[in-house]
């Protein structure tokens, strides 16, 4: 355990580190600029990526995948809707089953 004299000695030798506010402001602006430039890179990368679709082979492949994906999703949705319709038809208090 340190004595009060040791503590006083340590406190005398301690120098608080205060950051320069000018550096702080500069750092904030630099970070903002980096963030802005990243957005630019993302847009550039996207536009470069979009250009791939001008190649017929890639465009056709993407179109076929989109077509099959859409049909697949539509099939799943229609089956879920059919199941829901069947369950509603079993409920005597639903308007649909009452129409039968």
């Amino acid at each position: 355990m340190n004595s009060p004299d040791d503590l006083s000695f340590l406190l005398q030798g301690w120098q608080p580190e205060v950051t320069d506010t000018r550096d702080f402001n500069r750092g904030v602006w630099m970070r903002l600029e980096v963030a802005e430039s990243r957005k630019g890179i993302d847009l550039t990368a996207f536009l470069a990526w979009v250009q791939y679709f001008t190649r017929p082979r890639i465009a056709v492949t993407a179109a076929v995948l989109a077509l099959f994906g859409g049909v697949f999703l539509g099939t799943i949705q229609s089956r879920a809707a059919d199941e829901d319709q069947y369950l509603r038809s079993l409920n005597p208090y639903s308007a649909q089953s009452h129409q039968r």
Partner: protein
Amino acid sequence: MILEMKKGLLILLGIVLLAVAAQQISTCCFRSTPLQWLCHEYGLSPQQAERMKVLQSEYGARCGPFCDQMCEANANLETVALGSGSVTPEVRAAVVETDRIRTETRIAMLRHFYAVAAELPAEKRRAYLLKVLPLTIDSCGMQHP
């Protein structure tokens, strides 16, 4: 360069529209009737499908009147409850009447579910019952394995 980008964007937009159109059209085109869904889902033969049609028709005829009875009982309960300041014997009787109709309906539903399940392949009966039983059993958050 810019022309290429515009062309690429247009093609991408076309592809997205194609996917959306395919999804919408297939959602509409692949729709079926409740009975068709049941037959397809559980792989029923045409004979079993005919049997299902009969069962569904009988069920509709048996359960349809419950809806009218329940509407009447609910209307009566509302009238009696609004005209009373406490749970009088009339209010109690009106509540009991709605519960009686509800119980009869649930029993009729269960009979139908078992009749349908009996027509299904043995390995699919449990799956069917798990699907339809929540219509008659109030959920308390329990999950079946």
